[in-house]
């Protein structure tokens, strides 16, 4: 019982949220707010007729490409900014601005330059996901415990060893939390691009079901994207646990 406590708590909190959703739908708080059960039924229908998979095949393209680009370039750029002393003032402001910019207002500009295809959508995902990854990586690298670097140097580490065996593992918790935030922002970006640029994939389901007042389908689509994001974030967490086993239990020097 005690061993399954975290799982039980998760189930309990899910039960409370879905229960509240069901009640709010039954009241109803709004004509446009379906019950939980109706939404799940719509999700099941879309799953069985395959339309949800067709939609995701479309939505996942800009998402996966954008998240991969953001992760690779974001961590690379963050490392570079964190390691070099002079370039922080040049790059950090760009990403802080990117993070704060109202993206929806920039989308017409992107469409004008890159058209309404995949490129624009990938851009939106990157703009959402990249800044937090870059900024987190840079600050994590800059805050590597000095004593660990000194220790490695005293045991004759080369610069490459210091980077791969000290700086990266020490920065990994903050890099991973940046990745998690970046990925969730990327999900938002992917859906935003489908709502704002061209309705395709899951964005199309949301737009179309709203236009024909099929609210259960609309909420089912929204629910599915949240579910996917949660699953993905959990996988990311597992990956971190496997890669850096001792890291999630605090620093030895504390």
């Amino acid at each position: 019982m005690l061993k399954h406590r975290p799982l039980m708590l998760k189930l309990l909190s899910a039960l409370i949220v879905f229960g509240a959703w069901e009640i709010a739908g039954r009241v109803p708080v709004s004509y446009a707010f379906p019950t939980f059960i109706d939404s799940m039924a719509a999700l099941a229908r879309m799953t069985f007729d395959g339309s949800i998979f067709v939609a995701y095949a479309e939505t996942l393209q800009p998402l996966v490409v954008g998240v991969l680009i953001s992760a690779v370039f974001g961590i690379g750029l963050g490392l570079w900014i964190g390691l070099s002393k002079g370039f922080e003032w040049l790059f950090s402001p760009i990403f802080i601005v990117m993070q704060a910019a109202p993206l929806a207002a920039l989308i017409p500009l992107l469409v004008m330059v890159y058209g309404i295809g995949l490129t624009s959508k990938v851009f939106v995902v990157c703009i959402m996901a990249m800044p937090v990854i870059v900024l987190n990586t840079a600050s994590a690298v800059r805050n590597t415990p000095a004593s660990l670097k000194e220790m490695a140097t005293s045991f004759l580490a080369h610069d490459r060893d210091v980077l791969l065996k000290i700086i990266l593992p020490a920065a990994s918790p903050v890099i991973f939390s940046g990745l998690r935030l970046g990925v969730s922002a990327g999900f938002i970006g992917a859906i935003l691009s489908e709502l704002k640029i061209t309705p395709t994939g899951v964005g199309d389901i949301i737009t179309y079901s709203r236009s024909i007042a099929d609210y259960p389908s609309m909420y089912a689509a929204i629910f599915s994207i949240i579910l996917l994001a949660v699953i993905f974030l959990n996988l990311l967490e597992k990956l971190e646990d496997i890669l850096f086993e001792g890291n999630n239990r605090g620093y030895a020097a504390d």
Partner: protein
Amino acid sequence: MQPIKPDTRQAVTDSAVSVRNVSKVYGDVQALKDLSLEFPRGELTSLLGPSGCGKTTLLKIIAGLLPATSGEIEVNGVKVTGPGPDRSFVFQDFALLPWASVIRNVAFGLELRGVAKSEREAIAEKYIREVGLAGFEKKFPHQLSGGMRQRVGLARALSVNAQVLLLDEPFSAVDEQTRRKFQEDLLELVKNEKKTFIFVTHSIEEAVYVSDQIAILLPRPSRVSEIIRPSSFRDKSVDNIRRDPEYLDIVDRIWASLRSYVE
């Protein structure tokens, strides 16, 4: 009781480490000024002084982690220009990799030298046993007590088989009882390992207890004020050292000379 004089025997003993006219300036602060000191081979020398006297700075210059502003250091007759395989360091804050198991931490120095995994783990296991941590190889640092963590740090320093061990207040972050056990183990280690130990501490009792030679450093700017070589109790059993009249006398005399420098 004879007055304690700077020792003259050191000129004839073989030095593992020689510090000659070393100065260190940080900005406009003179941390070390024209400091010279010999460290006899196979012995433990303590650097003792009030805080801010530059003892850790001196240790890090010997380690090659800090450059000296002027002067030079020789280890086994070779001039120090940076960290080298002839010296290994034990850190005050342990400096263990939190993401690595005990065995990987101990073998880390060898890993950086490119020793094959099976070989370096065999060596690490030997030293883990030697410092009394057998059975903890797969644990992570956060699962160990402070004293055990420093044993890992010590095993890591021993496993690279450096001739000179540099210990920077290694026991200051562990509790008093663990500390006493450490001090006894250190005496054992000095006897068995035939290495040269340079030991920074701010504890007078600790310095007198473990040292073959004690260098008293006085601050601002730092210089060696005297060198003390306890003679009579070094060969006694560890249980009798703290009651030895010479031990008590040296502790008192060091305190008398340091007292005025302590704020």
